[in-house]
Each structure stands twice: as structure tokens, then as C-alpha cells.
């Protein structure tokens, strides 16, 4: 194929009608089309898929790096341990609880913020910029700030404000919270919701601003209440955006390591699977067990992803069909 006359086509259009004598040319053309794709594809298979295959193999081994002579085939023993060991089982529940609650809460708060920001008011651009800020603080730094500057029971900002508020009324016995030790899971969830709400808000705001206004205006003419318009027009339109935000948020929050590692170091039932796996292989040196837990995470992710991917796929097909 000659690059000078590269044919330009879009999905859905067949590039060329095959002719009798052009089969080999056709094949060469197909490879020329594939060539730019191959480096990325091969690189990704080598660096992500190959290691996972190794993880899969190790998951069937009894392998603790501290006693290497005992390394042997273990069958499904590691998997049985993952599903029965109280700590690891707790980690599975923690991961689910953390992901679901953070995704839902940040979607709801993000929706509220997006609805407010969709209206015109003074300083809207600046308000939006302020709202994006939590998403742009390095996650470890954000977690450190939450732990030490905000939630610290003796000099954190939250207790400081409580003390100050109470002192306004002449009281020296302000209630002092200690979220990190009394409700550590809540501390992790709150800090993650704070961090992810801007992301949801941005996606939902984009959704709101792409809303067809003619139907809304027609509904207003008919005397529909704002709630009816929201319920019957806005929400159905936003559905895809809500799903997309939920999916992307879930991909990242399932894998969260920074917040758990920094805020609680996995203590008091806050260890999610990424943290538990990190500990199992990094500190306990249980390579087989860590691998089995890793495979369990992937199976769980596949289940969620099959549903979630359908959403993205529907968005994508519409775009591809244009």
C-alpha cells in the first residue's frame, strides 16, 4: 500500500471492494492498518497480562519466601484460605462497602453540586474552580492532611472548630470527635467522598449542560413543576452520565490504596483488598496467598465490569455509529 494515497474511512464503511488479483495487497493493507496499533497492544499484553498469568500460577502454590524449601503445589488451598480467613474475608467486605458507599455518596453530592453550578450566579467560575481543588491534591497528601490537620483529635481543624463554636457560648466542654479511632471506616469514606465528589460533579455538569432545553421549556409551558422536570426530564437524561461516573469512580476506588494506607494503615477493619494483599506479600511474604487474593479481586472486578462495561458500550456504540 502506498502511504501517499492512504484511504480515509470511518467505522462502518468498508475500505475497499476486494478484487480477484488483489488479495495479497488487501492483506498488506490490513497489516499496514494494524501496524500503528501493535506497539501499544504488545507492550500492554507483556506488562499487564503476562504478570497476571504468573499471579494465577503462583496462586496455586504454597509459597512463603521466608521458607522457600516448603514451596509446593497447593491446589485450591490458598483460595479456601482467602474465603475463610476472617481478616481476608473482612477485607473483601471492606472493599465492597468502601467502593459502594464512596461511589454512591459522591454521586449524590456531586449531582447536587452540578445542579447548583448549572444555574447562573455571581462568581460561578471561581466556585467551580474551588470545587475541583480536592480532586487535584495528590491523594497521599490529601490523606495526610485529613489525618493530621483535620481529624487529629487534639489539634485537628474539626475539633478546633467545635471548641471555638462552644467557646462562643462560654462553654469549655466542647464535644471532641475521634473519628480515626472510633469510626475509622467513616474517616476513610469521608475523605474519599471529599476527593471524588468533584469528579462526579464535573461529569454530571457536562451532562446537564448537554441537556436539550426545548423539551424543558415545553414542559415549563405546560406548567410542570421543577421537581417533575427534574424527575422526568433531567434524571433520565443524566442516567448515562451517572452510570459512567459510577463506573469510572468504581474502577479507581476498588483499587484505593493511598487513603487506607495513610489514614488508618489498614487498622480496625479498614484494610481493603489492595491493602491486605500488599501486606500479605510485602510483610508476611505469603506469595501464594497474596496471589490468590489478587485473583479473587480480579474475578470480582470482572463481575462488576461485565455489567458496567455494558453501559460504556452503549455510549460507545452510539458514537461509533455516527
Amino acid at each position, binding site marked *: 500500500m502506498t502511504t501517499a494515497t492512504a484511504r480515509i474511512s470511518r467505522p462502518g464503511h468498508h475500505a475497499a471492494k476486494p478484487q480477484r488479483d488483489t488479495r495479497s495487497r488487501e492483506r498488506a493493507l490490513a497489516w499496514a492498518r494494524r501496524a*500503528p496499533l501493535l506497539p501499544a497492544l504488545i507492550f500492554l499484553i507483556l506488562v499487564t497480562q503476562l504478570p497476571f498469568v504468573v499471579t494465577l500460577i503462583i496462586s496455586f502454590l504454597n509459597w512463603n519466601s521466608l521458607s522457600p524449601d516448603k514451596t509446593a503445589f497447593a491446589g485450591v488451598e490458598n483460595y479456601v484460605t482467602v474465603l475463610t480467613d476472617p481478616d481476608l474475608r473482612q477485607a473483601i467486605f471492606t472493599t465492597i462497602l468502601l467502593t459502594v458507599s464512596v461511589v454512591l455518596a459522591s454521586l449524590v453530592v456531586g449531582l447536587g453540586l452540578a445542579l*447548583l453550578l448549572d*444555574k447562573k450566579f455571581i462568581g460561578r467560575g471561581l466556585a467551580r474552580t474551588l470545587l475541583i481543588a480536592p480532586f487535584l491534591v495528590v491523594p497521599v497528601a490529601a490523606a495526610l492532611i485529613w489525618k493530621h490537620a483535620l481529624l487529629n483529635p487534639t489539634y485537628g481543624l474539626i475539633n478546633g472548630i467545635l471548641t471555638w463554636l462552644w467557646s462562643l457560648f462560654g462553654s469549655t466542654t466542647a464535644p471532641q470527635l475521634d473519628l480515626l479511632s472510633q469510626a475509622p471506616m467513616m474517616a476513610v469514606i469521608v475523605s474519599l467522598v471529599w476527593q471524588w465528589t468533584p469528579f462526579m460533579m464535573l461529569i454530571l455538569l457536562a451532562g446537564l449542560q448537554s441537556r436539550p432545553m426545548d423539551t424543558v421549556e415545553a414542559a415549563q409551558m405546560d406548567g*410542570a413543576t421543577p421537581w417533575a422536570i427534574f424527575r422526568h426530564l433531567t434524571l433520565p437524561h443524566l442516567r448515562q452520565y451517572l452510570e459512567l461516573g459510577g463506573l469510572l469512580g468504581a474502577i479507581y476506588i476498588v483499587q484505593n490504596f493511598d487513603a487506607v*494506607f495513610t489514614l488508618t494503615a489498614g487498622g480496625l477493619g479498614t484494610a481493603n483488598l489492595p491493602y491486605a494483599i500488599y501486606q500479605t506479600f510485602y510483610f508476611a511474604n505469603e506469595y501464594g496467598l497474596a496471589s490468590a487474593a*489478587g485473583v479473587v479481586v480480579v474475578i470480582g472486578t470482572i463481575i462488576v465490569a461485565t455489567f458496567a462495561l455494558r453501559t*460504556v*458500550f452503549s455510549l460507545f456504540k452510539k458514537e461509533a455509529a455516527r
Partner: protein
Amino acid sequence: MSTLTPAAPRESGQARFTSLAARATGPLRRGKSRMDPTRNNTAAGLAAWLLALLFAAPVMWMILTSFHSETDAATNPPSIAANLTLDAYREFFGETSGVSPWPALINSATASILSTVLVLVLAIPAAYALSIRPVKKWTDVMFFFLSTKMMPVVAAILPLYLFARTVGALDNIWFLILMYTSMNLPIAVWMMRSFLAEVPVEMLEAAQIDGAGLLLTLRKVVAPVAMPGIAATALICFIFSWNELLLARVLTGVVAGTAPVFLTGFVSGQGLFLAKVCAAAVVISLPVLFAGFAAQDKLVQGLSLGAVK
């Protein structure tokens, strides 16, 4: 209410995505006042400002505390009006303690910038093969890319660690650069494809009719349209690499440790100095804050993998 049949909005909702790319307006354009232009806006504005300040408060508190002395930083109730000082920053940059954050910051910059360059080198041709001259089954390829992103890093980290240990690549910035490249490549391919798909078919056809070759078409037609998107992709890849902790923590140590790794060690190693922690957090967040605000308008499109404009 009778006109509000559910079919109407759904149809227009579908049309949204097909026509999105054709729209010239950005996602965050100042929309015309919606619904009721006069009523409720003051209330909505007030509520939005209150919430915006609430959400920004931790960031503002972090910045303020970083300019306080250690004694002013750790008080209850908070000392908002305390004297401002640069002591915490001096301390963080190791003037008195002798522990310099520069190696970690340089490692982070190296890993983030080089992996971003590598991502672009791999993703631009791939996106080209998936949008402008698409290969057969290109949607399957796209979903393969996305599925690698869904696989949690922990599921592959042990073999990577063992491999690095075996070949002597532990604590080596180049190995981390490869990891970051694979971490960002799927997202970059998706983003870039959506940006390249914005090049109007008519323009490509016109260039072809005018006899422009592939390279000329890429340079004169594709590049100008896709450049802002490529820049946004680069910034987002930079942000993700700069932020990354787990891989860096497992695969690096003394020599190749990045800023997030330095930050976690910095706290446990030196006890707690609140102002210094805040100064450290500000310093390592600055590049991301700059990059993020710079890419603000393309950020949504990028982070939603091009599905939302």
C-alpha cells in the same frame, strides 16, 4: 404533564452522544440561564458558594497551616490569625534537618515526564489506527485496552516485583517508568481516540482529494485539531504518574523513591510536625494543581474517556 412522555427525553439523550463530537462548544461553557432565569439563582448561588468553600476548606487550611509556625499550627481552637512564616518550607527543604526532598521530587518528575512521553509515542499511532483509519474489530481492541485498566494493580504486582528483583531492576526509576507507561496507556488510547475522532471526515476527504499524503494530512489536518486533546492527555497522564503510590512504594526505595513515597516516609520518620507536613503536601501537590487547572476544560472529557464532552 401529558407531554412529558418518557420517550422524548430518551431520544434526545441518545442524540446527545452522537452529536457531541460535532459540537464546537466546550463542556463547561457558561450556559444560558436555564429554566427560570430570575428566580432561585441567588439561593442556588449562595448554596453553591457555601459548599464550594466547605469543599475547598481542607485545601485552604493546608495552605494556611503550611505558613504557620509549628506552635501555631497545633492549637485547639485553631489560630487562624497567627503570624505567617516560611519556616515550614525551609524545614521541608532540609535546611536544618539535612534531609532533602529534591531527589524524590526529581525522581517523580523524571518518572512522570518520561512515562508520559512514552505513553504518547505508543498511544498516538494506536489511536490513529482506532479512529482515522480504523482496523477491523476496532471496538474489541478498545475494550481490551479498557479491561486492562479495570484489573487492579495488586493482581499483577507480585510477579512484577519478583521480576524486578530477579533482573536487578528494583529501586530503578526506569522500571517504574515502564510501569507508569502501562498504567496510563489504556486511558491515553481512549482519550486520544476520542480527540482524533473529532477531526471532521470532510476535512480528511478534502485533504485526500487535494492529493495530500498521509504525513502531510497528519501534520496539517489532524494535528491542529487534535493538539489540545493531546496536551490534555499528556497532562492527565502526568497527574496520574505523579500521584501514584502503591507501585512506587513496592518497586522503589532509597534511590528511586518518588515524592509520594518520600512523603509517607517523611511523616513516620520525623514524628509529627503539622506545619511541615502541610508544607510538604503543598509542594508535592503544586504540579498537579497547576496541571489540573490548566487542563480544566479538557479534564472531564479526558477522565470520562472521551464519552462526555
